[in-house]
């Protein structure tokens, strides 16, 4: 890695570790190794959202051209959100693409992602299925997002009815995660989810 990228990440890392947000357990940043080109970020789900009380892990890779190009960030924790792929964790956020500016930092990126959890942009989706559900049936979206937060991000237990639907698909021999994804995509309709899993 070039001098500037590594030197900057070292300074940024210290900056985040000492920041108020870390003290308040809102964001954390960990180094994967001593090369300063791979980090793991964690953000707390914002209160009063379906992600509240969950902790979401992010993979952060620093390109050699940093800070002239943005860090490459994706969700490691599975999440149900219009701007994040429920399959790969890929994120659709302008500042991680063409709106990046060299004055932004890992701290501002983590805070922006936290803000994205509180304010989805369903008209600029990364996951079209989630975005459609968000626009057409918000209450199902909310229930699903809460359920995913409980299962994958350590959030509070939400709706036992959804758990029992997953169990019945599991009993039919389907993988739990696949059953969850299928039910989530098909509005928790067991018949349509089964049909989807078979095809």
């Amino acid at each position, binding site marked *: 890695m070039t*001098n500037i990228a590594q030197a*900057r990440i070292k300074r940024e890392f210290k900056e985040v570790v000492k920041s108020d947000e870390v003290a308040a357990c809102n964001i954390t940043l960990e180094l994967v190794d001593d090369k300063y080109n791979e980090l793991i970020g964690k953000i707390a789900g914002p209160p009063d959202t379906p992600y509240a009380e969950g902790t979401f892990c992010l993979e952060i890779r620093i390109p050699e*051209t940093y800070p*002239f190009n943005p860090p490459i960030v994706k969700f490691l924790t599975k999440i149900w959100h219009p701007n994040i792929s429920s399959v790969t964790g890929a994120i659709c956020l302008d500042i991680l693409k063409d709106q990046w*500016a*060299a004055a*932004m930092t890992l701290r501002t990126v983590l805070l922006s992602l936290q803000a994205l959890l509180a304010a989805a942009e369903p008209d600029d989706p990364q996951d079209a299925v989630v975005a459609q559900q968000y626009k057409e049936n918000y209450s199902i979206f909310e229930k699903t997002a809460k359920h995913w937060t409980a299962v994958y991000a350590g959030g509070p237990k939400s709706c036992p009815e959804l758990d029992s639907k997953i169990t019945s698909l599991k009993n039919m021999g389907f993988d739990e995660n696949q059953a969850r994804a299928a039910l989530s995509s098909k509005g928790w309709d067991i018949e349509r989810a089964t049909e989807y899993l078979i095809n």
Partner: protein
Amino acid sequence: MKVKIKSNWTAVASWRWIANDENCGICRMPFDGCCPDCKLPGDDCPLVWGQCSHCFHIHCIVKWLNSQQVHQLCPMCRQEWKFKE
């Protein structure tokens, strides 16, 4: 009165950049130091100002502007970058 300096003497002076910030927003190194590609602060690694009043090491801002394909914007405020005369 006549003063005679007998022994050798060395003049010492200190200087600082007058910037509105402590660190360069691009490399995040102190303005009193130089950008990560230089060894000595001073005239070889000067600061430059944009018309938006934001200030960077010249080497850092030039690298940023060269990395921008369409619009050349200030990395701080996203206004169009123009060097202050």
